[in-house]
């Protein structure tokens, strides 16, 4: 059995016939071919699959595509400007070398944007505490925290 799912992804309408059990992350990666959203642990722990749904950061591997029916989804591909100018959070990650292998980075950036929105001008402790849903297997946390701190100061 299949169902039709329709939603907005990065400002564009998207729809497809999918199996009911299709996870949102698989819809994004396999149907839309937006492979910037990663599947790390597939158990909702690592946060590599973090996207924004109606302005909230959520883990796309732990929800059905159908749960996003009618929602406004933003993935890592949708945050830079059309001319290629990076989002300030992406730019801060680049400036502060907030990545090593890069696998966790899309999720880190999407999570960090939501973090700064909910905790404007966060302390380092707040950043570390609120980043607990994102794991970096390279353990490159110091520079990630620095990048988020820098981006938050820019935003303020």
């Amino acid at each position, binding site marked *: 059995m299949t169902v039709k799912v329709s939603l907005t992804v990065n400002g564009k309408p998207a729809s497809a016939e999918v199996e009911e059990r299709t996870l949102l992350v698989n819809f994004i990666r396999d149907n839309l071919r937006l492979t910037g959203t990663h599947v790390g642990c597939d158990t909702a722990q690592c946060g590599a699959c973090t996207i924004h749904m109606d302005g909230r*950061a959520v883990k796309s591997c732990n929800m059905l595509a159908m749960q996003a029916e009618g929602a406004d989804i933003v993935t890592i591909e949708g945050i830079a400007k059309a001319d290629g100018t990076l989002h300030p959070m992406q730019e801060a990650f680049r400036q502060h070398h907030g990545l090593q292998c890069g696998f966790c980075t899309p999720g880190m950036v999407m999570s960090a944007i939501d*973090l700064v929105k909910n905790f404007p001008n966060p302390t380092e402790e707040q950043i570390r505490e609120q980043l607990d849903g994102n794991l970096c297997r390279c353990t490159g946390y110091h520079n990630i925290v620095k990048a988020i701190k820098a981006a938050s100061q820019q935003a303020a």
Partner: protein
Amino acid sequence: MYSFNYRKVKTVADAAKVLAKDGDAKLLAGGQSLIAAMKLRLAHPSEVIDLGTIKELSGIKADGKAVVIGAMTRHAEVAASAAVKKAIPALASLAGVIGDRMVRNMGTIGGALANNDPAADYPAAVLALGATVVTNTRKIAADEFFKGMYETALGQGEIITSVSFPVPKRAAYMKFRNPASRYAIVGVFVADFGSSVRVAVTGAAASVFRVASMEKALAAKFAPESVANIAIPDKGLNSDLHAKADYRAHLITVMAKRAVETAMK
């Protein structure tokens, strides 16, 4: 994940109808436990009834006497709610330490209570505050709601619609969490209502429970030293790779003491 039929419903009554007919149907709230269980094939419902589109189930109302939270209200909304922070700050702070930020953006109070995970946080608040769980058919007192591991008083076709929390004089929740999963190894919620005190413990046993000895001591004198020397027997407590039963028993006393200290601030 095994396949299933997916169904969106507009009203609680529609959801109840489907649920009553099919014993293998499951309600989907935020899905932060259910989807994970389905991926592991620990749960394989025939039908998934998505409550996500029922607007009436979401929202927070508060006055001086009670805070009423709709079943589909996300943890993040409760944690950030100015009304909850003002009336029962301990409840907002509890909601802010469930899982991680992304989980809190999806997970709901109704889903957490219906699931009754032994290490979930909300059951401690519901039991300690003596909340009332409101369903589509009746009102269930907290003391009657939690029946055992993943077991509640909810009957077939019954759906939680909201939870009503009485406002205490002061309260606090202290959680010793697993550093990886963020689940409570032990969490203690202490609520002082002036004439009575209620203490509820989560994470330590098959289901949330109250500690009569601590409640009595705190009703006589609400101070950390009242509970500091109350030893909890480890019989019946969870023993697993995260913590042995005697360690959990010890943690209950320590967390209770810290909760009282925090409530007094």
